[in-house]
């Protein structure tokens, strides 16, 4: 199909970034990041199958400062994607398409993600996992 001389739709740079569009792309970014994170989950589970020594290695990595940083990111991505996923499911039921509701539910999702990540961090350190 010849597509050369057809008009282009307005491109991304002409749109002012809005909370709706930012949160939408963050949903995709966290989704892809979580998919990358499955590499870590796989490594952790498989290391246990290789025996105690390999498992201690993966646990030591996850217990390092860099491992903690990755896990914090993992937790935030999980909670954001979870919260915004539920927002998506609400849209599937036809709920919440009005502009003020869209912005409010978006902020609720961000708040949910931040609060849940903090609770998880506190719980993890309180459990003595640090």
């Amino acid at each position: 199909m010849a597509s050369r001389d057809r008009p282009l739709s307005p491109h991304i740079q002409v749109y002012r970034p809005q909370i709706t569009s930012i949160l939408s792309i963050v949903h995709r970014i966290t989704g892809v990041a979580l998919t990358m994170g499955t590499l870590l989950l796989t490594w952790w589970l498989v290391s246990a199958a290789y025996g105690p020594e390999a498992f201690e290695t993966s646990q030591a990595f996850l217990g390092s400062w860099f491992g903690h940083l990755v896990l914090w990111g993992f937790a935030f991505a999980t909670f954001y994607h979870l919260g915004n996923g539920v927002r998506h499911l609400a849209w599937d039921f036809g709920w919440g398409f009005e502009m003020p509701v869209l912005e409010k539910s978006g902020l609720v999702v961000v708040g949910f993600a931040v609060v849940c990540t903090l609770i998880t961090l506190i719980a993890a350190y309180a459990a003595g996992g640090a």
Partner: protein
Amino acid sequence: MEMRSSLGRARGLGSTKDGVGHWWAQRVTAIALVPLSIWFVFAAIGLMGADFATYQAWIGIFGNALMMVVLVLVLFYHAHLGMQVVIEDYVSGEACKIATLLVVKFVLFLLAASCVLAVFLVA
């Protein structure tokens, strides 16, 4: 002479080909992942810094192994569906798109199989 009916010709040719099945599967796995991922957060907190014996005892409990396997299967299926949408949207060029889709499909399947096997071997 055209032997196929109009419906037969149109079927599978729409802009999303088999979009409804994909859309529905994405929703079903998303709903399942709500409790599964919350379970995993709790499990991960409990296992932070655990030694091998502790992990082995934990995954040796039927319910834990079952939840882990179900989580892995649903998670990778959902990840695959999502990655497919992202690739279809952002990778231009049919050959490049199909190649990327295939690689991601194979890698995710391999990872999922590795996770399930790893749980079985330790549990």
